[in-house]
């Protein structure tokens, strides 16, 4: 009986190994199964999910106007101190003082892309965009001012 | 291979036994537990406001009560959380216990410790998971566990040389050396609001 067990051991072992080799052999001979994405080459056709959280931006319309009131809700919501808002007072044509943002400073290197600032914003002034190629040679380039120079707040946003 | 088969058999037996034992204390109520504890530690304080029954015992009572809870009929053999809370006036050790055969039975055992010289008996021999958790509490809160087999730092780096000197002079660790205590100030905490 010992001999029988011994032989069946060998046969079972070898057959289990052959099964595995059949599987890898199948993939070796079927090149259509290859799943490699040639990243920098396929940049033109690369499509990321619309919701992909890559970076915070502040959309501006054609008149160079944004909807940020400078309420600092995002600054408070941010867990890492990524956002810093510097406010100023604009003098409106009627001579009234009005609070507005001077600089919306966003530090991408500290951002964890948690989306809490977007949900906190009452006027939808900022949003996430699917940019992911963030590498730069100088760390200071990651500190961005989101409001474009000369931009101002859209009429009717309080 | 024989060893493995033995293990299998033992485990099977244990599983079967567990299912029998279940009935005996499935009906264990908070009142019954209280009675059980009061018999051993009359001055224990109970608190039922939370999800589970909390009780505060004296440091010297911890070991006997823990041993009693581990034995029949409670069989609280699963210590699923061991931690410490710094209440500024005192430290509180918190032991979350349950029975592996009846996971709906949960118990929170608390021990208040002196903040200046926190020392308590280890529960390592009862629940071996306590070994690592106690080492963590030791380095984070400075609680000394008496009779712990290997009370060293686990997560933080080894003691710096200066801390050792200070320890030698004053007899205890320098102030503010335990990161999870409330008076610990981290000079480079960038997210502190």
């Amino acid at each position, binding site marked *: 009986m010992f001999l029988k067990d011994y032989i069946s051991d060998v046969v079972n072992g070898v057959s289990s190994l052959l099964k595995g080799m059949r599987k890898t052999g199948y993939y070796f001979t079927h090149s259509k199964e290859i799943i490699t994405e040639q990243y920098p080459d396929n940049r033109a056709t690369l499509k990321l999910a619309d919701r992909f959280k890559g970076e915070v931006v502040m959309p501006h319309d054609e008149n160079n106007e944004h909807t940020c009131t400078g309420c600092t809700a995002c600054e408070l919501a941010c867990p890492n101190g990524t956002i810093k808002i510097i406010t100023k007072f604009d003098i409106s044509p009627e001579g009234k003082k009005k609070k507005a943002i001077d600089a919306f400073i966003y530090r991408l290197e500290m951002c964890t892309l948690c989306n809490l600032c977007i949900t906190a914003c009452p006027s939808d002034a900022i949003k996430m965009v699917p940019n992911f190629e963030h590498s730069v040679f100088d760390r200071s380039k990651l500190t961005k001012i989101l409001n474009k120079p000369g931009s101002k707040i859209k009429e009717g946003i309080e | 291979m024989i060893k493995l088969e033995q293990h299998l058999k033992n485990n099977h037996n244990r599983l079967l036994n567990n299912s029998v034992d279940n009935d005996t204390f499935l009906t264990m109520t908070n009142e019954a537990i209280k009675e059980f504890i009061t018999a051993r530690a009359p001055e224990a304080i109970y608190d039922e406001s939370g999800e589970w029954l909390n009780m505060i015992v004296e440091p010297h009572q911890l070991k006997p009560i823990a041993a009693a809870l581990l034995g029949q009929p409670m069989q609280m053999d699963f210590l699923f959380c061991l931690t410490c809370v710094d209440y500024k006036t005192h430290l509180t050790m918190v032991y979350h216990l349950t029975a592996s055969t009846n996971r709906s039975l949960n118990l929170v055992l608390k021990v208040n410790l002196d903040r200046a010289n926190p020392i308590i008996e280890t529960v390592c021999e009862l629940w*071996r998971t306590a070994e690592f958790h106690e080492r963590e509490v030791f380095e984070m809160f400075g609680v000394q566990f008496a009779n712990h087999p290997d009370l060293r730092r686990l997560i933080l780096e080894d003691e710096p040389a200066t801390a050792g000197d200070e320890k030698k002079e004053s007899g205890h660790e320098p102030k503010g050396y335990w990161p999870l205590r409330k008076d610990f100030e981290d000079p480079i905490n960038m997210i502190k609001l």
Partner: protein
Amino acid sequence: MYNETEIIKDTTNLGPEGELVVNMGPQHPATHGVLHLVVTLNGETIKKIEPHLGYIHRSIEKMCESLTYRQFIYVTSRMDYLSSHINNTACALLVEKGMQIEVPERAKVVRTILNELTRIASHELWIGAMAMDLGAFTPFFYAFREREMITDIMEDTCGARLTMNYIVPGGLMYDIHPDFQTKVKAFIQQFKEKVTEYEDLVTGNIIFQSRTKGVGVLTTEDAISYGCTGPVARASGVRCDMRKIAPYDAYDRVEFEEIIETAGDSFARYIVRVKEMNQSIRIIEQLIDNIPEGEFVGKTKNVLKLAKGEFYQRVETARGELGVYIVSEGATTPYRIKFRSPGFSNLSVLNHIAKGSKIGDLMATMGTLDLVIPDIDR
């Protein structure tokens, strides 16, 4: 040319005779991160293993003390980064419990589906990494092919692939993607076809079986005493599935089996995880067509404040029982927060079960414990 003193310069620190102390890690291919094991060997046989932790310790518990109840959830994604959804769910559930927030049905069901997808993704990665520990490189790529489908689903719906931060107190951050259901169904189909590959390549393989069977045996008593949870404990015959013991979200209305093996060795731990993936598929199949319509987030106050008291929430992550313990003083931030991570307890058992085995067995044992180092260090 040869001079003994030239080679061994320091003869004071050699240790007892017959012992060889090897530092495995923090940079070692099999520790999958920065785990540092000081292994004492006698030839090839292990005499003692001493884990040194903390290479990726970020003191998340202390950090959370200065974060509000909305903010601290994102940090927990960084603990066990392979089951970040489940960690987030634990925190959200705890805040909901503390404030009695009503969670809409839709959010509950979606959370359950996402949690199960996360579990499958985690186990897929584990199978690949485990096979790699044992020297088989190829299954890693096959496992990642399926995992990629899950991360794509996550990317569509949650906007991130690993650290989603999609679950907020009260429900979800935003609604699911319109393609969510079709994509999940496509994934289920592909998974069912391809799961046989692991059978051929890994499970049935004689070398794999002889490497794992009877290796790193953890008895039921030890599993309980060491506080092991998750697949590690279930392979030793301990019933510890939090989805059964204290059902949360939609787990109370789905049918699934708690996989129990009794051998307690590395192969049993492997089998438990493979079968668990199939159970997760079963849960998803039951829910995916029955996502109720309605709100995705319940009504919450702007500023969350937990009542004074203590709260504890347990969930089943891919690695075991994650416990979140919060002591609240009624402020907007937790007074003390403790994460009872499954990996921490599972790691503590390593010395006990790997002692006396060979170095090769250590890889099998460590692989099947499924250690994620940020989860252990926190």
